[in-house]
């Protein structure tokens, strides 16, 4: 695969982990998500979340992950279920702290919209 020197086969397990992380219904790391939701980062986290939604369902990911795990017998089984307490609290905390985060309010409205959609799903 292009300049990296790795084959698709080699990077596949890492790509799978990334998709698994992204396909979680809840946002696990709030500050991380917010950072990349800013215009400065071209709303990368939001774009990626949308892409994942259209490409994969969570069940599909879990199925693939389980398959991989049993096949490779790694120790990752422990981490399959994300801890619920990890869900970040209120969003307001961040809003007036840094222009990185609140420079574009529509980002947050967008994020809210994403969340409400999850409830429906």
């Amino acid at each position, binding site marked *: *695969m*292009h*300049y*990296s*020197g*790795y084959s*698709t086969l*080699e*990077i*596949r*397990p*890492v*790509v*799978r*982990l*990334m*998709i698994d*992380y*992204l396909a979680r219904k809840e946002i*696990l*790391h*709030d*500050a*991380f998500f917010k*950072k*990349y939701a800013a215009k400065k*980062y*071209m709303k*990368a*986290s939001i*774009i*990626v979340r949308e*892409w994942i939604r*259209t*490409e*994969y369902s969570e069940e599909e990911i879990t199925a*693939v992950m389980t398959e991989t795990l049993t096949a490779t017998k790694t*120790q*990752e089984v422990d*981490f399959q279920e994300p*801890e619920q*307490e*990890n869900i970040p609290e209120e969003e307001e905390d961040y809003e007036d*702290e*840094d222009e*990185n985060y609140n420079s574009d309010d529509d980002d947050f409205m967008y994020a809210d919209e994403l969340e409400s959609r999850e409830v429906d799903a």
Partner: protein
Amino acid sequence: MPNPSYMKQQINLEWRMRGILVDWLIEVHAKFRLLPETLFLCVNLVDRFLSSRPIGMEKLQLVGVTALLVASKYEEVMAPNIDNFIYVADGGYTEHEILKAERYLLHIVGFDLSYPNPMNFLRRISKADDYDIHTRTIAKYLIEISLVDDRFLKYTPSIIAAAGMYLSRRMMDRGPWVSSSSSQSNGRRPI
């Protein structure tokens, strides 16, 4: 390099706490407007330190803030003053404590701060698509997942960078193609 299963030796800690710490470090790092390399080195220092020394939960943030201090001294042109680090930790630690922790941390990691940063590899791979800013930014986001999610610890920085770029390119290329072929293929897509 850190031990991917070091949490077994950390009786007072869990992976979940590491995730919270790294998330907080990302926030502070963004607030200080530091370089991406600083963040990656910082998390690498935290993991290497925790691989060899069991610590109490109350010291975890101290390790994090100290690693960020050391990493910014190493990577940045203008490292933030130590007062800023004391401030972001809500005054939980004194200057003396942080400086002492700094010496200890450096000692534990053997003063070895040369970490093969995923950003270095990304820069090289980016050449392949003429430094397209879109795929690059998405790739940076994907690569940073490897910081908050401990399952990436066993992978090398170069393979993480390659995976981030690969997935990012797939996301970007999908444009006109997805509506026609991908959504119709009911078989499993290769991931």
